[in-house]
């Protein structure tokens, strides 16, 4: 089985694909908001601490689990856990890895389709008469089918962009690892960096756009992100926010890195490749992501209004304040198209990775041909996306985002860390991580991986459970009219989890039959 596995065409292609998986909308929208709200420059202290103690170690751990699983012909978590832990229940823990990536894929593609839609609207100057926040918010909400507007009276345009996005994702996936995902990464990643650098140059040359407000300028925007407020460092929430940001930005705890790494050969390096993908992601986040949306918002709206925009969340920043800015600058349609295409490239290189674990599961554990497995997952994703599109205003997507896109990541990371470092064993795990390594990983990371990283994860999980999971579970702050939709969202997620449990059971019965015959 292992001998027939696909392989990456080139190492650079693999690194770009894994970096593309990590670089998502959050690099350009979530990071600057988090930094500005949590101590500015001082935020970088807990951020880099989490990068060194949580991000990098988990990155090496996930690459290593993936390569080890791939050696035995497994490209998804159930099979990987089964070979790491010789116990009948091990494979069922892997269901969490399939579930997290599948659930995120279901709603992420819809959000990704907004960026495709808005890049087309930018090129066509469709929203250029909406020059206020209220008007632009109405434009966005009417596009999402939440309210009737001047340009959109229903959700059909958004639905068509969603179909186009899903179609493109699965067409790429259908072409396979090297011809599909790797080719996408080799085109989209350089384009993403090129667009981001052009936008950063444009932002830095804006100066003071409104002479009547001399303090509305890019330098003050950078100051908002970088001027340190050391008093925030005594607040535990800031340290948790930094750890959460590192977790999200590197796409850890999703099962996607393991799936990509499963197509490596046994002695291919993972130490340097893991470090390179992490560094590339951080460059996109800290250097580029921190230099576009917030600085330009301060230059056009001033500090106080930018604080309100940041408090309104990432989508407010990306899909409301940025388009308003594009209506105000010469060549706004070009920069607007670049901004949303940049987000689209960031999105699509992540979403194709999310589908990979489930496609690999069908191929490796059931022997289903690649094209057929891709079609099955495409159909399943399309069906499950319907309520996300039509019940968007009722919290359907937010519920999935919390349980899979936030809490589920920490749970899965905790499971894989315990299985790899404690059950498989720290000595064997360390040997596995260093196999074929092109760089020497400091030995202290063995201790970090065994003790510090799980402790970090445990603190995150306990805090999130207390602060967020319990209130979300009990539906505090949910309007009564949305309660049935929240239950619907939960029912869909539970059904998916049950389906994965059943499929894992069937797959291993199939393996047993094959071994007997």
């Amino acid at each position, binding site marked *: 089985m292992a001998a027939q596995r696909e392989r990456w065409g080139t190492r*650079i292609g693999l690194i770009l694909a894994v970096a593309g998986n990590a670089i998502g909308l959050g690099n350009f929208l979530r990071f600057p908001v988090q930094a500005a709200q949590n101590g500015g420059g001082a935020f*970088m202290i807990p951020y880099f601490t989490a990068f060194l103690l949580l991000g990098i170690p988990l990155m090496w751990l996930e690459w290593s689990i993936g390569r080890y699983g791939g050696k035995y012909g497994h490209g998804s978590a159930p099979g990987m856990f089964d070979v790491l832990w010789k116990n009948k229940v091990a494979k069922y823990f892997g269901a969490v890895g399939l579930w997290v990536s599948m659930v995120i894929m279901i709603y992420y593609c819809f959000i990704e389709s907004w960026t495709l839609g808005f890049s087309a609207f930018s090129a066509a100057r469709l929203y250029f008469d909406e020059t206020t926040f209220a008007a632009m918010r109405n434009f966005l909400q009417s596009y999402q089918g939440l309210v009737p507007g001047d340009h959109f009276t229903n959700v059909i345009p958004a639905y068509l962009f969603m179909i186009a996005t899903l179609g493109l994702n699965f067409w790429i996936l259908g072409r396979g690892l090297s011809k599909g995902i790797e080719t996408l990464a080799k085109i989209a990643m350089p384009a993403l960096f090129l667009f981001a650098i052009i936008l950063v140059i444009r932002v830095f040359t804006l100066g003071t756009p409104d002479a009547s407000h001399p303090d509305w300028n890019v330098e003050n925007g950078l*100051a908002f992100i*970088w*001027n340190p407020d050391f008093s925030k460092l005594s607040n535990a929430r800031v340290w948790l926010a930094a750890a959460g940001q590192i977790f999200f930005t590197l796409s850890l705890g999703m099962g996607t890195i393991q799936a990509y790494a499963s197509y490596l050969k046994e002695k291919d390096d993972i130490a*340097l490749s893991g470090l390179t993908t992490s560094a590339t992601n951080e460059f996109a986040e*800290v*250097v580029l992501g921190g230099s576009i949306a917030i600085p330009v918002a301060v230059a056009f709206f001033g500090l106080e209004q930018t604080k309100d925009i940041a408090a309104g969340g990432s989508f407010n920043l990306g899909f409301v304040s940025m388009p308003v800015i594009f209506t105000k600058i010469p060549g706004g349609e070009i920069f607007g198209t670049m901004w949303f295409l940049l987000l689209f490239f960031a999105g699509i290189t992540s979403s194709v990775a999310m589908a990979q674990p489930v496609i690999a599961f069908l191929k490796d554990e059931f022997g289903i041909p690649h094209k057929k497995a891709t079609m099955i997952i495409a159909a399943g994703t399309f069906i499950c996306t319907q309520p996300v599109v039509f019940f968007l205003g009722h919290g359907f997507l937010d519920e999935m985002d919390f349980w899979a896109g936030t809490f589920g990541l920490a749970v899965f990371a905790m499971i894989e860390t315990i299985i790899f470092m404690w059950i498989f064993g720290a000595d064997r795990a360390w040997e596995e991580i260093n196999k074929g390594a*092109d760089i020497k990983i400091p030995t202290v990371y063995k201790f970090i991986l065994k003790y510090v990283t799980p402790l970090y994860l445990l603190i995150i999980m306990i805090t999130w459970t207390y602060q967020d999971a319990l209130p979300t579970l009990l539906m505090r702050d949910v309007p009564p009219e949305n309660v049935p939709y929240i239950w619907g969202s939960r029912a869909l997620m539970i059904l998916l989890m049950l389906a994965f449990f059943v499929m894992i059971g069937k797959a291993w019965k199939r393996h047993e039959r094959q071994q007997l015959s």
Partner: protein
Amino acid sequence: MGMTIGGWIFLIVGWGIIGVLTIYSFSKVLRVEAKKRDRENN
């Protein structure tokens, strides 16, 4: 408001660490791959 000295220090150090890490790791990958190609050709 403007950037304070602390702000500039954090920006330069933050960008510097990430810049150096990115350039170091990518150049190392390229060097290793070039060596492998040379070995294969020989």
